[in-house]
């Protein structure tokens, strides 16, 4: 028995789907962010496994891309969690169900 590219891709797919479920279904703003972070992780895992297994002239480009994704994810998390605190201060809740200011 051996571990191939497909195994890692399937793990990434399941992780992405779970993150997507969390991000779409949860009511709490922080839970939604956790789902988004799970999706980032799934994509990064896919990048690194392609970088390890697939034919390429410069296989480490996948790793470099993952470093950039982690950078952007960290910036996103800082701003989004600041937004969560601000939302609570302005609306008194961080439930995304109750944010219907755009409803006609």
């Amino acid at each position, binding site marked *: 028995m051996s571990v191939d590219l497909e195994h890692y891709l399937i793990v990434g797919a399941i992780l992405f789907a779970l993150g997507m479920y969390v991000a779409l279904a949860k009511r709490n703003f922080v839970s939604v962010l956790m789902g988004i972070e799970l999706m980032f992780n799934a994509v*990064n895992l896919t990048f690194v496994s392609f970088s390890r297994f697939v034919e390429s002239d410069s296989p480490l480009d996948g790793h470099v891309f993952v470093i950039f994704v982690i950078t952007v994810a960290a910036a996103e998390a*800082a701003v989004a969690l600041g937004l969560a605190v601000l939302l609570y201060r302005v609306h008194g809740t961080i439930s995304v169900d109750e944010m219907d200011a755009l409803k006609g």
Partner: protein
Amino acid sequence: MEDTGTVLAFWLLTIVTIGSALGVAFVRNLIHAVVFLVVSFMGVAGLYITLSADFVAVAQILIYAGAISVLMVFAIVLTPQDERKNAEGFLRLPALALAMLVAATLIFVAVDNGWAIADRPGFEETASLIGESLLDKYVLPFEIASVLLLVAMLGAIVLVRPEGAEDDE
């Protein structure tokens, strides 16, 4: 990868990663969900090690399992006690259906596609090569990333500044 240690590590880490991701999705307490999220990040870091991506694995532990989860806990304790639930909203069933559809599609593509597999051993060490390409081939995105981090830091500070703070100057 054929050797038994790697195969065993892969399966164990997969169980840990997906199991704790399921925990994030279905546990009721928000703090417990963050703990499961940290375990899932650690599992992904372990999977990076089985893929011989040492630098990315360490960056994953430092930034995701360390910094981002601490930020999440801060956001949770700064918001009210009665909102620390991990409940689903009205989109629960459509989200479940969409997630299953996406998983099925991605798994089908992953299995059905004939990937151009390269028969090479794992990387010996990646940190110095990543550093070289960051300062050579990817120097422009590298510099833009530093500006992005500065903007995000300033943005976060300005966002959560108490109201009326600009009048105090």
